[in-house]
C-alpha cells in the first residue's frame, strides 16, 4: 500500500482511501482529503515533520503519522 507519507516533494497524487478511525480520520476527511482528491506534496517542515500539502486550492499541514493513514495511487 502506497501512502501519502511516501510521496516525494513536488509530486501530485490521488487519494484511494483514508484508513484509521475516530476523530483524526474524520478531521482529515472534513478538511477535504476524500476518495479521488488530488494532493500535491509541497515540503516538510525544517525538523522533518509535519508535511505541507496543497489540495482543493488551499494549503494544509499534516503529520507524517497521519499521512500514513492516507492510501494513494
Amino acid at each position, binding site marked *: 500500500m502506497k501512502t501519502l507519507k511516501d510521496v516525494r516533494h513536488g509530486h501530485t497524487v490521488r487519494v484511494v*482511501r*483514508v484508513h484509521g*478511525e*475516530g*476523530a*483524526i*480520520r*474524520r*478531521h*482529515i*476527511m*472534513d*478538511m*477535504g482529503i*476524500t*476518495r*479521488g*482528491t488530488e494532493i500535491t506534496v509541497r*515540503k*516538510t*517542515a*525544517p*525538523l*522533518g*515533520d*509535519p508535511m*505541507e500539502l496543497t489540495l*482543493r*486550492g*488551499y*494549503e*494544509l*499541514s*499534516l*503529520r507524517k503519522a*497521519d499521512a500514513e493513514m492516507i492510501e494513494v495511487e
Partner: protein
Amino acid sequence: MAYKIALAGNPNSGKTTLFNVLTGSNQFVGNWPGVTVEKKEGYLKSDHEVVVVDLPGIYSLSPYTSEEVVARRFLVGEHPDAILNIVDGTNLERNLYLTTQLTELGIPVVIAVNMMDVVTKNGDVIHIHRLSDELGCEVMEISALKGTGIAEAARTAVEKAKARMHPEPKHNFSGSVEHAIAHIEEAMAGRLPKGQERWYAIKLFERDMRVIEELQLPAELIAHIEEDIRSCERELDDDAESIITNERYNYITALIRECYTRKNAPGMTISDKIDYIVTNRWLALPIFAAVMCLTYYISVTTVGTWANDWAANGVFGDGWTFFGHFVPGIPSVVENALTNWGCADWLVRLVVDGIIGGVGSVLGFIPQLLVLFFFLAFLEACGYMSRIAFIMDRIFRKFGLSGKSFIPMLIGTGCSVPGIMASRTIESERDRKMTVITTSFIPCSAKLPVISLFGSAIFGGAWWVAPSAYFAGIVAVLCSGILLKKFRMFRGEDAAFVMELPAYHWPTPRNLLRSMWERSWSFIKKAGTVILLCSMLIWFLSNFGVANGRFGMVTDMGDSLLAAFGNLIAWIFRPLGFDEWSCAVATLTGLVAKENVVSTFGVLFGAGELSENGAELWQRLSEMFTPYSAYAFLIFNLLCCPCVAAVGAIRREMHSAKWTLFAVSYQTGLAYCVALTVNQLGALFAGRGSWLGTAAACLVIAGFLYLLLRRKKPAPVAEEKREGAAV
C-alpha cells in the same frame, strides 16, 4: 421580540472582522457552558432587535472537537432564526463543505461570500445566482475588510430570520444513500424534532455518537437502522462517515465547476512565494528565531521595560517627569490627600500600600501587555502564527504540548501573566489548558532577584545557579506535559495536527487594536477584582497582629498575623529543609509578587534598605540554610503557585474556578515533591540524611517515574466508538 442570527464559518474566513463590523462595540464576551471556548454575542448595529451570536470558527459539524460540539449544540438546541454563513471566496471549495451541513439544519441560511475584492482582483468570477439556485439559499458578495456588501447581507439575514421559514435543503446524496436516509427518517417517525428530521437522519446514518446518546433510542430500533446503514456501506464499499463526506465534497466539486470561472491556472501566489522563504528548510528556523527575538525584545526588553518602569515607578511610584514638569505618582498624591482629610493612619496605609501598591504593581504590566498583544494579534492575523505551529510542532508534540506552546513559554520568561494570556492562540482546548498550567514554571523576571540572592548568598555566585533554575523550569514543563496527558481529564486522542496554513494577508490596524484592547481589558478587570481583594488581604495579614497583648496594627512584621500563620504552617516545609517561620512568610508574600521573597527577608532580618544583590542578607541566609535546603527553597519558590496576577490570568484563561484550583494545586504539589527530593537527597550525599527522608524522596521519585512512564489508557472517544460499533 428579539431575533437571533448565528454567524458561522471556517477559521480564517474573516468571521471576526465581519462580526466586529456588524455589531460595533455592542459586544459581550463570555464562554460557552462547560468548555473554555470563547462566546461572543452582540446586537446588530442597524437593528437592535437582532442578536448576532458568533460561533467558534469550525470546518465541520462533526462530533469531535469542543468547538464543533458547542456550535452544534447551539444550532440544533437553541435554533437561531437564521444563520449567516461567511465563506471565503478565494477558497470556496473547502468553505462550502460546512455550508452543505448548515443547510440541513432546517434554519434559513444566508451565505456571505467574503474576500470578493481579492477574487475580482485575480480576475475570477463567481456566478452568484447560479450558486444561490443550486444551494437553495441567498448568496451575497461581501468584503469584510473593505466593508462592502455587509449591510445588504445583514439585511437579508434579518429578513429571513423574521420570516421564520423552514427551508428544505436542495442538495441530495446519491440514490442509495438517500434511500437509507429515507428509511431512517421513516423508522424514526415521531421521534425527531420537527424541521430537523433530515439533520438527525443523516447524523444517525453517520453513527454520530452524540446524536445516538441524545435520542436514547431502544436497542431494536438502533439494530434496525444499522441494517440500512450496513447495506448501503456494502453497496458503496466504504463506511458511512466516509460516504457522507465524499458525497458532500463530490457535490461541491461539481458545483464549483459550474459556478466558479477561474481566469488563470493557479500558479505561485504571493503567499506561496512568502512560504517558499519563511518555511524553507534552512531559513525557517533562523527567521522564526529572529521574529521571536524581535517580538520579545520590543515588548519585554525595550518598550515593555521602559513602559513598565514608567508605570510602576512613576505613575504608581514616586513620580515621573513630563516635559520637564514633575508629576507626582498616584501613591504620594493619594497619601497627601488622605492625610489632609485627616484619615486614620491605618486607612492611609491600607489604601496606599495595600490597594494602590498591590494593584499598581499588577497594573504596571499593562503597557507591556498592550505592546505584546499588539504583536501577537499581528502574528495571528497575518497568518504567521500557524507557520510557527508548523515549524515547532515536532519538538512540542513529543511532550503533549502544541507547537504554539512555544510562544507562551518564551513570553513567560519576561512575565507569566502575558505568557499565560498568549496561550489563547492555541486551538486545542487540551493543549491550551496544559500550556496555561505549565507556563509559570519558566522563571519570570520577578523570580530573577530570588535566584540571584540565593546564588550569591549560599552558592558564592556560582555560574550554574541561574541556568539550572531555567533548566529546572523547562524540565518541569516538559515532564508535566507527558505526565498530565495521561490523566483522565487530559486524555483523549492527541489533537490531530491537521492544520490549515491560511494565505498571508495584511491585517487592518483596527482589528489589531481591537484584539489588543480586548485582551488587555479582560486583564484590567481581573486586576480590579480578584487581585484587589488578594492584595488587601495579604496587606492586612502582614500589618495586623497581636503585639503587647492587644490586637492591632504592628510595626514589627514578626508580630503580624502573617507571621503567626507562617509559624503555624512552617512545619509543612520541614521535609524541604526550611522550617523557620521567616521562610514560610517569605513564600507567602511571594504570592503577591515573587520579588517580595527578597524584600520580606530584608524586613524580617531588619536589614533596612537592600542593595541590588541583597548583600546584607547573605550572612543570615547562609546561617539558616544548608546548600541543599537553600536550593530546595529556591526550587519550591520557582515552581509553586505563581503570583496573584498570574493566578488571575490562569483564572481568566480557564474560565473556571475548579480548573484554576487544579492548576495551582498541581504547581504547588509538584514544587513540594521536587524540593523534597532535592533536600533529602542533598542531605544523603552530604552524609546527613535520615532514613525516613531518603525513603520519602525515593517514594516521590518512584511515583513520579510511574506517572511519567505508565502506559496511556485508550482514549474514551475510541471506547465509545467501539461500543457504538458493537451495538
